[in-house]
């Protein structure tokens, strides 16, 4: 093997990689926030009293979880464009990922909600709390705390999955790398570099999620034990 590794292109292209990194981070954070919110709404729907609501949410979740993210992205970007809705690639990217992550978040949050004992619900009802108060004060906070590690894993996976949006020409880290590769022909080097950047980003995300957990779960901060 006579191949000589050459990372010198980085001197010229690092600002582009940096902006790609920022776009990946932005895309991920937006998708995680909205995916979590939608997923939680779906989880509440899947545990609702009404059978019809439960059924509708279950169909949505199963449909999304059993199709590839890339196909969902193509449906939203190329599919919608072909029937006359031309939306930006970045918007479609976020939309597709939100829809995808919401279905997985739904299943994780459902497990959390179902872990709340009936006695907790009875106690809140007997304190004359409304359905909304019960949901936001008694059910969702401990439910989220219990499944938080699983949520974080899912969110990191989603951050990595944003690389797929390069396929619909949305700007982010992987699409930046593809462009640099086509100009420098340093495939091995550039993909190694962005692999390392993804690892670093995943690490930063984990630290961020840990810090967030300390902020939003005071019991965890004080006692350090799982709920």
């Amino acid at each position, binding site marked *: 093997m006579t191949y000589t590794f050459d990372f010198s292109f980085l001197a010229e292209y690092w600002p582009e990689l940096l902006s790609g990194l920022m776009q990946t981070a932005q895309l991920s954070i937006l998708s995680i926030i909205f995916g979590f919110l939608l997923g939680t709404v779906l989880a509440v729907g899947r545990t609702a009293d009404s059978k019809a609501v439960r059924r509708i949410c279950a169909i949505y979740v199963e449909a999304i979880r059993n199709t590839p993210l890339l196909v969902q992205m193509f449906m939203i970007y190329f599919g919608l464009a072909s029937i006359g809705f031309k939306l930006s690639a970045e918007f479609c990217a976020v939309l597709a990922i939100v829809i995808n992550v919401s279905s997985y978040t739904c299943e994780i949050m459902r497990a959390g909600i179902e872990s709340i004992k009936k006695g907790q619900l009875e106690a809140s009802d*007997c304190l*004359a709390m409304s359905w909304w108060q019960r949901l936001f004060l008694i059910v969702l906070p401990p439910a989220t705390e219990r499944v938080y590690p699983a949520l974080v894993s899912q969110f990191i996976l989603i951050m990595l999955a944003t690389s797929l949006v390069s396929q619909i020409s949305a700007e982010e880290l992987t699409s930046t790398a593809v462009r640099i590769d086509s100009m420098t022909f340093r495939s091995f080097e550039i993909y190694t570099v962005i692999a390392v950047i993804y690892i670093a980003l995943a690490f930063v995300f984990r630290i961020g999620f840990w810090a967030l957990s300390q902020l939003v779960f005071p019991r965890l901060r004080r006692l350090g034990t799982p709920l």
Partner: protein
Amino acid sequence: MSPIVKLNKVSKSFGSLNVLQGVSFDVAQGSVVAIIGRSGSGKSTALRCMNGLEKINGGEITVCNHHLHQNVTKAQLRALHLDVGIVFQSYNLFPHLTVGQNIMLAPKWVRKQSKAEAKDLAAEVLGKVGLAEKFDAYPEQLSGGQQQRVAIARSLAMQPKLMLFDEVTSALDPELTGEVLKVMENLAKDGMTMVLVTHEMAFAKGVGDKVIFMHQGKVWEEGDGEILSAPQTPELRQFVGNGL
């Protein structure tokens, strides 16, 4: 004075199991009523029906001027819950909140009290159950008896007109049982109307103004604490036989 609680021929079944078969009794304002009986006699179900945790199939219950029947609405139940507190065998404290937050939650969100008001109130009721220093502790850091006293305080903070106690000492050892019963005795002295389902015969006899013995879903015997010393029916005689 009309009774604060009135059960009139209440029936309740779970599937084909008839748990309550025409239960009738009254609770006078300011009195302590102890419901005793074997496991499966329907005593806990009767108590749970009194604040709508179980919907009744027949008869009528009036609690603090609220009427419970087969078709009671959620709004009616909420109104009832503003007047009636309940304490459970398994405490049911909210594990993600501190003791103080557990107590302040409903006054703040349901009664719409200011944070300062709710805090004063929480400190006051916590003092009543002898746990003022546990305001910032989490439930899991407390013993069972302490958790149950917090649950009583949480209920008291809603300033109920009636308190229900569902076997609140059944999960506790004798020492912890004693501290919870002491709190309940003080409540009774303060004039709180209380209905309790209990296996503590000495407490039922000593503190109860009325003792109701339930058997097979019916009120089998009813009277003051003395019925435990001089049972009229063979069933109650057998039930208390080994106790007092």
